Every structure is written in structure tokens, then in C-alpha cells.
């Protein structure tokens, strides 16, 4: 196992250029995703989905007479406790040697269990082929020592790629700096191993509440209660079998 690799997206230096979106699509041959003027500021992508693995959100705020325009490039969080991975029945989703979570397109059968399992709404099925797609953290590139496409392109180093431990250290320092400058609402998101997904492999520095950016405030891995659920499911299954048996018996 290599070191755990990840993304630190520092939204305080994001200029919303969307280079990450295009670089990602170009490298990964992700199809274009429709031509809709959404009216969500300059965001016409809308959200992460099967055909959008990086998504830049634009949030316009007015505080008294001052305008603030927040921009943030969202991506799969590559959770420590990944719901999508837990529920995948085919082994299409797997955890790589970099501790990232990747879908194997040649294995995925399009069952779609992973889709509701993601607390962030990231993973999604493509309409045409039915399979599930999401950010791979450019698994092919990083296996060869390259940087993922989005982080390679990012003009302002808003997207940083590296060993997660290093990124966390860097992020802590950056947060301190911003707090010292009076950015009191600045916070790290997905940084803590104690959060609901056990910490994210791709985490963020935000300048406001996560919900403002369309991120859940306290994401919890959907499979957290899985053992208990299995137990309950087991009881239910026994009951069903019993019921079925009873019905057969009854018919007889």
C-alpha cells in the first residue's frame, strides 16, 4: 500500500475558471453534459454526476453593500468509510493502493446500489450505458507518478494533490492564516477523521457554511448502521421465508 493520496481544495483562492472541469473531462473522456443555462450564477454544470467529476459552484452573496462571490470546485470525497464501496455487490468499486475509491468500468453492471449510498450525491449512473461513474482521482495518472488532471491544470493551486497527511498539515496552516486575516468563517470540510465518513481523501477549505456550497453539513456514511441493518434484514428474511413457507403450506 502506498501513502494515502488526496485532494485539498482551497476555495479561498479559487477563481472559478472551470479549468478543472475541462481538464478532467479531457483526460477521462467524460462526455459533455448538456447545454442548459441554469441561472445559478456562472454555474451551468449544476452538480457532480456521471458526466461531471469536477463541479465548480458559484455563490453570490451580498453583505450590506458588499458583494462576495464564492467559488468552489467540488469532487468525489474518496471517503475513508465509503458507502458506495460498501454496497457495491460486484466488486466494481474498490479501494486502491492510494486509499482512493475507484469504479472499475469493466466490472460495473449498472445495478446502481452505490448511487443512493453516497451521502454527497456524487456517484451516478450514465444514462446511455447505465454504469456508475465518478472521479477516479486519475487513478491511471497517479499510478504513473503524475498529478491528476484537475490539479495539474488549476491555475491558482486551489486544487492541490498530494499525500493526505501533508495536505492536512498545509490546510491547517492555511486556515490559521485566514483566521488571522479575519476570515472568521473559514473552515475545513472533510478534514477530520472523526466525521461521519471517517474523514475525506478529498477535503476542502470553505469560507462559509457547507450548505452554502451545496455540501451536507454532517455527512454520514450510509452504511454506518449496516451491521445492525443486516441483523434486522436477517430477521426479516427469516420472517419472509417463514411467510412464504406458510403460504405454500396454506395452499396445500
Amino acid at each position: 500500500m502506498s501513502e494515502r493520496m488526496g485532494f485539498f481544495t482551497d476555495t479561498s483562492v479559487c477563481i472559478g475558471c472551470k479549468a478543472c472541469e475541462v481538464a478532467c473531462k479531457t483526460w477521462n473522456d467524460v462526455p459533455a453534459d448538456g447545454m442548459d443555462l441554469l441561472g445559478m450564477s456562472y454555474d451551468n454544470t449544476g452538480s457532480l454526476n456521471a458526466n461531471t467529476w469536477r463541479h465548480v459552484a458559484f455563490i453570490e452573496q451580498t453583505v450590506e453593500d458588499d458583494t462576495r462571490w464564492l467559488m468552489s470546485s467540488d469532487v468525489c470525497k474518496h471517503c475513508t468509510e465509503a458507502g458506495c464501496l460498501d454496497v457495491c455487490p460486484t466488486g466494481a468499486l474498490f479501494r486502491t493502493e492510494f486509499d482512493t475509491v475507484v469504479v472499475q468500468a469493466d466490472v460495473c453492471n449498472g445495478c446502481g446500489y452505490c448511487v443512493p449510498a453516497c451521502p454527497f450525491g456524487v456517484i451516478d449512473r450514465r444514462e446511455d450505458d447505465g454504469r456508475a461513474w465518478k472521479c477516479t482521482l486519475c487513478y491511471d495518472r497517479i499510478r504513473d507518478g503524475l498529478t491528476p488532471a484537475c490539479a495539474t491544470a488549476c491555475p491558482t493551486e486551489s486544487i492541490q494533490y498530494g499525500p493526505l497527511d501533508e495536505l492536512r498539515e498545509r490546510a491547517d496552516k492555511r486556515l490559521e492564516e485566514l483566521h488571522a486575516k479575519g476570515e472568521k468563517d473559514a473552515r475545513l470540510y472533510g478534514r477530520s477523521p472523526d466525521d461521519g465518513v471517517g474523514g475525506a481523501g478529498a477535503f476542502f477549505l470553505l469560507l462559509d457554511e457547507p450548505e452554502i456550497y451545496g455540501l451536507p453539513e454532517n455527512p454520514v456514511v450510509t452504511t454506518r448502521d449496516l451491521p445492525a441493518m443486516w441483523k434486522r434484514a436477517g430477521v426479516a428474511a427469516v420472517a419472509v421465508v417463514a411467510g412464504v413457507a406458510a403460504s405454500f403450506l396454506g395452499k396445500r
Partner: protein
Amino acid sequence: MAECHPVGFQWVMAAKARGAKIIHIDPRFTRTSAVSDLFVPIRAGSDIAFLGGLVNYVLRHGKEFREYVVAYTNAAALINEDFRDTEDLDGLFSGYDPEGHVYDHTSWAYQGAEAQALAGDPEDRTGGRRHQEAAQAEKRGSGGAPVSAKPDVDLTLEHPRCVFQILKRHYARYTPEMVEEICGVPAPKFLEVAEAITANSGRDRTTALCYAVGWTQHTVGVQYIRTASILQTLLGNIGRPGGGILALRGHASIQGSTDIPTLFNILPGYIPMPHARQHLDLASFVARDAGRTGFWGNMDAYTVSLLKAWWGEHATAENDFCFDYLPRLTGDHGTYDTVLRQINGECKGYFLVGENPAVGSANGKLQRLGLANLDWLVVRDLQMIESATFWRDGPEIETGELRTEEIGTEVFFLPAAAHTEKDGSFTNTQRLLQWHHKAVEPPGDARSDLWFYYHLGKLVRHKVRASPDPRDLPLQHLTWSYAEEGPLGEPSADSVLAEINGNGPDGPLSAYTELRTDGSTTCGCWIYCGVRAGGVNQAARRKPGQEQTWVAPEWGWAWPANRRIIYNRASADPAGRPWSERKKYIWWDASEGRWAGADVPDFEPTKPPDFTPEPGAKAQHALAGDDPFIMQTDGKAWLFAPAGLADGPLPTHYEPLESPYSNPLYSQQVNPAMQRYEHPANPYNGSAFPYVVTTYRLTEHHTAGGMSRTLPYLSELQPEFFCEVSPELATERGLEHLGWATIITSRTAIEARVLVTRRMKPLRMGGQVVHQVGLPYHWGPNGLSMGDAANDILGVAADPNVHIQESKAATCDIRPGRRPRGQAMLDLVEEYRRRG
């Protein structure tokens, strides 16, 4: 800058991380504003007032970098006693001819040094709009207009007629309150900017100004830049690291396209095209146009070397080096003038080479009427652009103004090669030439533009090879042999670069100082001389940045002479010492007897700081060791321009041609020397248009869209034409977010989806509320992402110096709903025209 030059903006972000303060001044709140320390919304078309306010602040509070100003600028020069300022003449400078709408520059001259007007011909100075319009000012792309000698000076800067005092009086009324009234910027906010800029300039600190076409596309565009130059020169921010006025150019080689121009008024290296009345022969050409001092004093050598490059052995001293082969100008032959000639039938053929004027030029209808009246049109592009399809789907077909079956234009569409399919060099926004290598062959019939012109030249030359007509001599004698490569017969771009670089008796030249007047040297573009020094393509150098100094002199090649900061002699004090350790760049190394530093000195390398020229010296030998502005005839930065400009020696605020507001400074409302283009399809707006409108770009698209609206990955990011309005304007006009709006001027009406956003802010100018409508201009009817073309609503009126159109400030009306179709659309516009 973040919006249109995101990767360049990484350096701004890097500076910010190190404590630099970023101020963004713009009519709209952009991606740049989002990460700036201070955003200052401003009324489009009012920047001279803002910058003039800063100049006034500097002068009033004694914030100028005095030692720099006295030594390196013309602040001390005394001006002719006949000079009258706009403050004396209610908005006019002395010398204005109200009949011809032109200035006679004579009274703007230095005292004691009769300013040589752009051309010696008095007719050219005093009258004849056509003559002045030969855009002589634009050839100043590398140095100011010639003046004949050094002026009388008052180094105390106290003389009432010295430039410094004239400047002080001229800008005295540009107070914070006046800035507020003209620009809609509250006085306290203006003062915050003024304090920040002045505190960050001087010995230890420098401030940089960055601009783009938001400053150039005005009827006073050149004067916008001049105001910035005055401010930066007063603060000592020119020729020094971290300073400067940086033009953020929007196309890969737009700098190169003026250096080696495809522009009507200049030859390569900013040598003017000869004018029929002034330049009867080579002697009159170089005598009248070359400054007698400074490096332009060698214009004869530059010109002869160019003529030798083009006509080779046929160019001899006896025949004036074929000077007579050059066609002559008689006035404005710029692109908008040409369009009018197309409409009146005089201009019958047209080449469009990677350009889409049906979308990208102001007043698209005018453009398309021109295209529709041609005999033949050649379009070269990657994709099927609107300028090639106007005859079947242009807006005039829809309105019934044009009918496909009645358009006689013969159209050739020739597919072009992409940058990956050809060798060649781009010159970027900092004068840096960078070579791109061919990676693959172009597909199908696609060819490079180099291939097209080389083979067209071969064909044409073949067809006239036996012609006895003397007009064909320049073709017959033209040097036109370039190595052909590969299966397509691609001419070698490197061999063309070799011709541009030039040769002497000993082979490739390495510097323009080697050029001679006797015909022994050839050089296709003197400022590029050295790009192939030693026979090596210096533009292709790619020593990794990490392995070089921060100046990175071994990456590509910058003109002139690989200098990265121009006029860098000014980074040292008059004695040749760095102004400060922190801002050390180029300095005099007395022990070595030469200038040293991280960059190539923009100065003669061994001329000591205390050098005093001999009386009567010529060219660079007439400049002293502390004259850093070596392309200027007097070696000084011009706070006041005693020659060279068509509309005044000092910038002053005029309203845009189309403005809902009166000029609070003078009864002279607009630039009195601006250039108008009279045509029924180009009417100017009257009073029926209450709102200010401006156009701009988005990160996701590129100019007129040919290279972005055709690509799925970019189109989906900004899929449709939209307008941006404030919530207040939306309420006033009943506009709904994501609904449709129709934007109307006296030219036409267009429709756009509406984005209501607080990023557009109504401004207050005195008692008036200013509403601005923002229009990104990338769209047209073709491609994947479609919409009306914003440029269609703009009129054509231009800066008199460079003929660039005013497309960044105009007036419009806006109303909810889609625009009418067919005749109803024409009726709507007609109704507005009637209203005034």
C-alpha cells in the same frame, strides 16, 4: 484578468499570498473582483476621470517620485507659450480646427525645440482628415513621436510653463468629488485606492497596472493608456520590476500581429507605410519619420534592411532599394473604412484569415452588408464561422434585408491548420516570442496560413512572370524562395524566421545594432533581429523555468534584444545605482564598466551613467547616460506629449460618443477629434436610450467564439447568450431572471437570456442613478452554443489615433421578452431611431 487570463493571474494570486494588495476597477463584478482586496465599480467610459483623479491626488499631495520624475520624464520641459489647455478653452486644446475636427499640433511643442509634427507636411498637421487618419500614431508601438532636440528645462519644476505645472493645473479639478460625479465611485472609495497606490510606489515599492480592451475600445482609448502612463511615470513605476502598465492581450499573437503587422499603416517593426504626399522617395521617408535622436534615428538602416529582405539583389542604392515598390497610403485604410468601401463597391475582394467580423467587429450588420456586396471572399478557419455563412443564415436574411439568391458574393472556404499542425512563433503579451512545433499533419485539405500565402504567392508570381507591366515588378522581383517540407509542400517556418531575423555579410545577424544603410544587411523586422542569433531559433528555447533565474531569460526570446522589462535603465537611479535593494534589477557595474543585472540592459551596455552626448550627435549617441527611454528622441518619458497624438497632448475626460450624461468638466461633451463613420446602417444613438451598455468576455469562451462555441466542453459551461442586469434595473424594466430581454440601439435589436445579479450594481453620479447592462459578446448563430451577437448593437466610432472602435461604452434600451422577427424587428428599431 482572472476572467480572461486565468493562468497569468496565478502570479497575481502569488503576489497576494505574499501581501500584495489587489484592487479591481471594472463596471461589473468579475472573477477578478471575487478575489481582490478591493473592488471598485465604475461607470463604463469614465476611466480617464478616475485615473486623472489619481494624477491629481499624486500632484496635490506631493506623492510623486521626485528624483525619478525630474531625471527621467519631461516634467521639467518648457512648453511653447502659445499652448492653451482644455481648462482655458472649455474642453479644447489650442490648435483645434472645428471645421475639419482635427488639431494642429504646433502649439503643443517644446520651447526651444520646435516639435516636429508627425509629418513635416503642414497640410498633414493642420487639415485634411484623411491625411491625419493615416494612423501615424500607431507606429509608436515602440517609441514616441520624433521631436527635433532637447527642450529648455526648469529642473525645479516651478516654471509656470513647465510640463509639471501644466499637468498640475490640467488635473486640478479632478478631485475625489469630481471622480464621484463622473465615475460613480464614492469619494472615500476613490481615496482608498489613491492612498494604496501611492503608499505602494517609490524607491522600495512598485505598483503595476493591468488593462485589456476595456481601456482601448473607446473614442479616447489611446488617452486612457496615456493617463495610466502619466500616473505610473509620476510614481516611478516604469522600467522597474513589479511596475509597468501591462496590456493583457486576448489573442495568442496579437502583439506579434502589430510587431510584424498585418495592419494597413505600418511595415514590420513599426516602420510606417509610406504616405503618398509625404514620402516621395526613401530620403524623404526616413528624413521625415525618423527621430534624429534615440534609436529611431537609425530608421534608414531598418528600412533599407527590410527592402533588401524583400527585393534582394534588385534593391540597390541606385534605385532607392526599391522603395518605390511600396504602395502608398492616402488616409485611413483601416478595417472599418474598408467595410464602407465594400458597401460602396470599391473594395471587391476580401480575405478573412482566422477572423470572424460578422460576430467580432462592431456593428455586425455593417460587416455583413459589406460581405454581401463583394465579388469574392476567401475565408480560412478551423470551423464554419458566421462570416462564411452570412449569405444563408445571417440576421439580415431573417429580416428580409438580404436574400440569399440575390447575394453575388463568391465564397471560398479553405480549412486551416491548427497550432499543433504547423511550426511557428507566437509573440505573447509580454513581447516574448515562443515557438510551437508541429505535432501532426493537418487533416484533409486543411493547410497552414503560411502554406496558403506561400503557394498563393507562387501562383501569382508564376502568372505574372512574363508581364511587361511595371506594376508587376515588385512581384517579379520579390524574394520568395523558402524551403518546402513534407508531402504537402509546407514552407519552412524556420526559414521565414531566418529572413525576419536577417543576414549580413557574415551570416545571421544577432542584433539590430548591426543593421546598415548601405544594403549590406537584410532584416525582415528590425525589432526581431536576434531571434535567430547564431543561426539558432532563440524563440524555441525551453530551458526549464526552475533551472533559471526568476527573469528566465533562456525561455523563448523577447524583443528587443531579449529584454524582459523594457526601459529597465530606469530601475537604477541617474548615477546607475539601484533605487533600493528590494527593487534591484539593472545597475552600473563600474569595475566592469558595463550595466549588469538579471535582465539584458535596455541600454547600450557600456554607456556609463555620466555619459554626456557630443553636441550634434545622432541617434542613440545623442542620449545621455541617464536617458532611460531610449526609443524616445529625447530619452525621457512623456508626461506631456508635444507631438504624436491626434487628440491632445494630455488626456482629459470626454464622455463616450453615446452617453446618457453630460460632461461635468466642460461643455465639450465628446472627444472633438474622434473619428465617425457616416453610413445609414451606422446611425449613432440619440436620447431614446437611457442605459449604459458594455461588452466583455467570459472565461469559458474565446472572442467571437470560433474556437470555443464549437467545442462541447466549453459550450456546455456557458451554453447561451445572456445579459447581466442589477435587481434594481430588472425591477425598473420588468426583467425576470432566466427570462428573455431585448436590447435595442439605433443599429438593431438583439435578444438575450437575463441573469439578474447583485454583481451588477447601480451607481450614483451626483443625483443620478446609473444602470449598466453587461453583454458577453461571444455568440452568433453558428456552433453548439448559440445566441445573438452583442456586437450587432454597437455603432462604429473610433479613436482618432489608432482607429479602434468604441465598443466598451454605449447606450441602449432594454425591455422584457424576445425580439420581434422579420419586418417587425426593423420596425422596432426604426421606431427608436425616430424617437431620437
